[in-house]
């Protein structure tokens, strides 16, 4: 089987490290195999740029199999591109057509500063976790794994939220640059399980306040996040977050 190849025009956001401003630069991506992922296509472009003595395009990546949450960029105005429930590293070039022009931009939010080109600083998501997205485990003997029975339905609901890889696409896609889906996923994951209950009230209270302090916007139920989340996390997680906050503040 001979692999199909396509050629594309890329408009990529370039911004030097420490620079306040950037601009779009146009590049040609020639003879790209449709079996390649979007990141592999960028690798090819970067190789050419390096050969020419130009600075390659900086982008974040790690696992390249859709599980680590490091990659991500806006591709033609869509977070991680237009494929549903797909990270940028898992977006394949067969979803693009020959001769297409593709605009590639970094995540945009006040909380996410551009580090370089397509790389943004997503440490505010880590700071949100530090604000309460954990359970405190005291020292002592390892507890028996099955000591606390958890109904299968509950375990599954918690798992559906726990699949969040912290990529930040929800923030990038949200018209308000809100991190509600991310916070909702963390709060849901932990509040559903008995181990997470003792700290549930404090967790939601500190995380939601931290979200605003870090410069994220407020949710207005646009539901763009759930449409772009590569892990298919639903805004049901946000409804649960709202319930948890109401419980914590008023009950």
């Amino acid at each position: 089987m001979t692999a199909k190849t396509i050629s594309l025009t890329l408009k990529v956001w370039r911004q030097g490290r420490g620079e306040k401003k950037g601009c779009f630069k146009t590049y040609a991506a020639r003879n790209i195999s449709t079996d390649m992922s979007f990141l592999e296509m960028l690798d090819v472009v970067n190789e050419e740029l390096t050969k020419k003595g130009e600075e390659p395009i900086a982008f974040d990546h790690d696992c390249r199999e859709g599980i680590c949450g490091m990659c991500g960029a806006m591709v033609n105005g869509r977070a991680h591109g237009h494929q549903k429930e797909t990270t940028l590293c898992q977006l394949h070039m067969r979803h693009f057509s020959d001769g297409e022009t593709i605009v590639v931009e970094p995540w945009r939010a006040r909380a996410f500063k551009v580090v370089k080109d397509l790389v943004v600083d997503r440490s505010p998501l880590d700071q949100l976790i530090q604000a309460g997205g954990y359970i405190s485990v005291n020292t002592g003997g390892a507890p028996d794994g099955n000591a606390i029975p958890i109904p299968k339905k509950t375990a599954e609901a918690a798992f559906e939220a726990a699949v969040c890889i912290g990529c930040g696409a929800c923030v990038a896609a949200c018209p308000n640059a809100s991190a509600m889906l991310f916070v909702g996923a963390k709060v849901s994951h932990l509040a559903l399980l008995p181990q997470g209950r003792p700290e549930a009230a404090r967790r939601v209270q500190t995380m939601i306040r931290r979200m605003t302090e870090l410069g994220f916007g407020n949710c207005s139920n646009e539901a763009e996040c759930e449409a772009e989340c590569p892990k298919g996390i639903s805004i049901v997680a946000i409804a649960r977050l709202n319930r948890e906050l109401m419980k914590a503040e008023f009950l």
Partner: protein
Amino acid sequence: MNWFFEAFSTAIGKKLLMAVTGLGFCLFLLIHLIGNLTVYGGPGVFISYVTHLHALGPLIAVAEYGLLFFAVIHVSTGLLLFIQNRRARPIGYAVKRNAGGRTIGSATMPYTGLIILCFIVIHLLNFKLIDQTPQTVFNTLTNLFSVLSYILVYTAAVIAVAIHVRHGFWSLFQTLGVNHPKYMPFIQGMGIMFSLLIAGGFGFIPVYIGFIA
């Protein structure tokens, strides 16, 4: 009491304020629509409805101040959210496409809200803050609807309300934490039905006055 105001100043607290006041306005719209259906009964029925309504006295005053209080909260919180949310993304995208979550309603909430606010001011000036003694309220209605520009303003406001409610209705349930795949489609459907009912119910009044009555 400090904890109380503090809770409502959080990102979710502000949403709750929007949701609860919005629910109040949905109920008001429904009652207002039911009352206005008496227009279709002709001047006699409509005037008797208005007289009966005003005979409620203190109850009406409570409702009016309640609505005013809700409006102050809804508008000021909405404005604050609008400003904060704009500030959350100082540099926008060169290209941005919707992924399928956004609707016309959700994308235009602040703007339809502003149109509704302007119309409410006009509406109160026309019906509430004028001396109704020289003519009956039905005459006020027919006079207004004989002016084409007023009909256009009114129709624009009705459309704005319908679009606003299209997003607001399901959204308030989501904010109050009432979202489950089992019944969310039903709430979504109810929201669309409700906004169509509002659009049809209020929107048909000038047609009735102009062509049928």
